[in-house]
C-alpha cells in the first residue's frame, strides 16, 4: 500500500500538503467533497483547504452553517450513500456538540449494519496548544478519540506524512479522524515548528495507516510520541547525544491502528521507554503505550518507563502557565536523567 516515492526538494507545510492531497483526490474521484466552517473562500482557518474552493466550486467545497451536529451528521449520511466526504471540526475541543454523530454513528454504523453500511469519511480536526489559546482551544484529546472503537485515528508530525496519510484516509473505507497539530500547520500566527515543513512529492502517494516510523535511531532509550511531541523528542535526542547518550525516536503517526510491533522492537533494543504526550497524563495514549510494551514483555525494560505528558488540568491561557505545563525537550532530558539515576 505504501508507495515509495523519492522526495523532491519542494517543501510544503502540513496545511499545503493536506490541501494538495485533497485536491488530487477530488480530481480523481467525484465522490469526494469537503464540508465545514470557513473552509470555502477563506481556505480553512488553518489553511488546509486553501485553493479548493477556486478549483472545485461551492457545491464540492461547502461552507456550512455553524452546526457541527448538522454537517458531521450529514457527512455520515453522505458517506453511507457512497460519497466520500471530508469534514472539518475546526477545533477538536468543539467535539462535544457533534460527538453523537462521531462515536455513535460514524464509528458504529458499519458494525451495527452487519458490515453492510460503509462510512468512508475523513474527519479533520485541529489539536494542540502552545500559543496561549486556553483550555477550550488547545487540547489534543488523542486518547479520547483513540479509545472509541470503529474509527481510525492519525496524527502526522510532518508534511510528507500528512499528504500520504491524507490520501490514504480518503481512500480508506473506514472513517478516519485526521488530527493535525496547530503548531505544525505552517500558519505564521501559530508559531510554526520548522521541522514539520519538509520536502513533499507532487505526485499522489499513500502512507499505510497503522505504521509507525523510527525517525531517529539510537540504543540507550526509546522516545515515543506523535505530532508535535515528535519534535520535542528529536530536540531531546540531540541534547542527549551532546551528553553522550543515544536516543531512538518513534513517531507513531497513527494511534488506531497502533503499530505495537515497531514500539516493542525499539524498546527491546534500547531497554528504556519514555512516552511523550501533549494529551492529558492519565487514562490516555501514554498509559496505552507503556501497557502495550510491558504486557508483551515486562523483562525488556532496564528501568521503569516514564511519561512526559500534559498534567491532568484544563489548559491555562497565561503563556507562562502554559509553558510550565506543556511537555518539552528539557522535560524529556530531565526524565531520562532521573531514569538513569534510579
Amino acid at each position, binding site marked *: 500500500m505504501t508507495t515509495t516515492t523519492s522526495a523532491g526538494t519542494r517543501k510544503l507545510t502540513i496545511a499545503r500538503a493536506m490541501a494538495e492531497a485533497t485536491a488530487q483526490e477530488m480530481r480523481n474521484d467525484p465522490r469526494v467533497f469537503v464540508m465545514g466552517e470557513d473552509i470555502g473562500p477563506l481556505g480553512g482557518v488553518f489553511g488546509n483547504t486553501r485553493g479548493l474552493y477556486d478549483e472545485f466550486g461551492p457545491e464540492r467545497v461547502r461552507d456550512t452553517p455553524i452546526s457541527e451536529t448538522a454537517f458531521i451528521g450529514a457527512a455520515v449520511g453522505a458517506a453511507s450513500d457512497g460519497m466520500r466526504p471530508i469534514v472539518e471540526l475546526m477545533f477538536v475541543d468543539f467535539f462535544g456538540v457533534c460527538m453523537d454523530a462521531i462515536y455513535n454513528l460514524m464509528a458504529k454504523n458499519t458494525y451495527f449494519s452487519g458490515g453492510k453500511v460503509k462510512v468512508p469519511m475523513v474527519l479533520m480536526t485541529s489539536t494542540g496548544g502552545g500559543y496561549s489559546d486556553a483550555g*477550550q482551544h488547545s487540547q489534543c484529546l488523542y486518547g479520547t478519540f483513540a479509545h472509541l472503537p470503529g474509527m481510525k485515528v492519525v496524527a502526522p508530525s510532518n508534511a510528507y506524512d500528512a499528504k500520504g496519510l491524507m490520501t490514504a484516509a480518503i481512500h480508506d473505507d473506514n472513517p478516519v479522524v485526521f488530527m493535525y497539530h496547530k503548531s505544525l500547520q505552517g500558519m505564521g500566527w501559530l508559531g510554526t515548528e520548522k521541522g514539520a515543513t519538509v520536502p513533499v512529492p507532487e505526485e499522489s502517494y499513500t502512507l499505510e495507516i497503522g505504521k509507525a516510523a523510527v525517525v531517529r535511531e539510537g540504543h540507550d532509550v526509546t522516545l515515543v510520541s506523535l505530532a508535535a511531541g515528535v519534535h520535542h523528542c528529536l530536540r531531546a535526542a540531540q541534547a542527549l547525544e551532546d551528553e553522550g547518550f543515544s536516543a531512538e525516536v518513534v513517531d507513531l503517526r497513527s494511534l488506531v491502528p497502533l503499530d505495537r510491533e515497531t514500539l516493542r522492537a525499539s524498546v527491546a533494543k534500547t531497554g528504556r521507554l519514555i512516552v511523550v504526550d501533549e494529551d492529558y497524563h492519565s487514562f490516555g495514549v501514554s498509559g496505552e503505550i507503556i501497557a502495550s510494551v510491558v504486557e508483551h514483555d515486562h523483562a525488556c525494560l532496564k528501568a521503569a518507563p516514564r511519561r512526559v505528558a500534559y*498534567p491532568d488540568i484544563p489548559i*491555562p*491561557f497565561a503563556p*507562562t502557565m502554559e509553558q510550565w505545563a506543556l511537555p518539552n525537550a528539557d522535560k524529556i532530558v530531565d526524565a531520562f536523567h532521573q531514569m538513569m539515576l534510579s
Partner: protein
Amino acid sequence: MTTTRSEVTYTPTFTDGDEFRLPTFKLLQQDGTLYDGAEAPDLDRDKALRIYRAMLFTRVLDERMMAAQRQGRLSFYMQCTGEEAAVIGSTAALDDADMIMAQYREQGALAYRGFTTDEFMNQLFGNEQDYGKGRQMPIHYGSAKLHYMTISSPLATQIPQAVGYAYGQKLAGEKHCTITYFGEGAASEGDFHAALNMATVHKVPVIFFCRNNGYAISTPTIEQFAADGVAPRAFGYKMQVIRVDGNDVLAVHEATRIARRMVVENNSPVLIEAMTYRLAAHSSSDDPSGYRSRKEEEAWREKDPILRMRHWLQDREWWSEDDEKALQESLRREVLETMKRAEKRQPPALETLVSDVYDVITPALAEQLEQLKAHIRKYPEAYPKSAGRGKGGA
C-alpha cells in the same frame, strides 16, 4: 393527545411562512434626529451619557488592544466595533443585577456595568490579579459582582444555560431576568433551538439577544440560513419576537426595556434580533479582506452607531465637541496607562495550575505539581517568570 389548534382544510396548501414579514424597529436616523412618527424614548440625560461613555470606552479599548495584539503584546483579541449600540443599549435597559450570559463580543455590557479598565486588563494579560487566575484566553471575562458569567468558547452553549439560570431566578421568586447574547452564526447550533423551545414551554424569564452582524468568521448570512434572518424562528416556539436596528441605540434600548417587562412580569421569554454589522475582523486571527469588500465595510461605517448617538446627544445639547475631545483623550490615556501596568504584573503562581480542578487537590495532581516544581528548579532559565506573550487565536 394532539395539541394542535389547526383548522381542517380540504385543499393541500403548503407555506414557507414568508407571508409573516417582520419589520425592523427604528427610532434614530444617522444624523441624530428621530424618524418621522418615531416617539422619543424614555431615556434621561444621566443614563444616556452612561450609555455613551460605555460605547466610547469600548471603541477606544478595542482599538488600543487590537493594536497591542499587532505589536505582539497580547496574544489574542476580539473587537465589538460596530455593535456597541446593540450590546450596550440592551444591557442598559436591564436592571444592573439581571444576569448576563454573553458569547464573547459583549465587553461593552461589562463596561456599562462598571468593570474597571484595570479589571479588563488583568484578564487580557492573564496576570496574578485576573479573577480567572490566568486560565482563560483574552476577552473571556467574568464578574460575579456584576452578574456576568465567565465566557466559554464553544458557541451557543450559553443559551441553554441562560434558560436554566433564568428558571432558577423564577423559582427563587426574584424579579430578575437573564439576557443571553449570541451571533446569528451561533444560532445555527442545536443549542439555540433546544433552548428557545424549553424557554417557552417552561415560561422562563429570559431574553435571547441575537447580534445579527452579517458574518460568522467568513461565512455571510446567506450561507448561514435561507430564512429572513433569525427572528422568524420564534414563531415555531410561540415566542415573542422583535427585530430592531442594532445600530440604533434608542431602538435597542426601547425594545429591550419593553422585553424585560414582559419577561419579568409575565415570564414570557423574548427573542430580539438586532441587525448590525461586524465592522472589524472576527478576531485578531482573521483577515476579512479575503471574503468581503471594502465598499461593503465603508457602507456600514456610514452607519456607525456611536456617531449616530453622538449626533442625538449633541442635538439635545447634552454633549459637545469639547466633551467628546476630552473624553476620547482621557479614555485613550487611561487605557494605555492601565495596559502598561497590567502587562508588567506577575503571572499567577505555579500552584494555581492545579487548584480549582477539583475542590480539593487530588493526590495525582499534587504529585504532578511536585514533579513540575522539581523540574523547574533544575531548569529555571527555561521558564521565564514575567507575564509573557503568547500567540493565541480562533
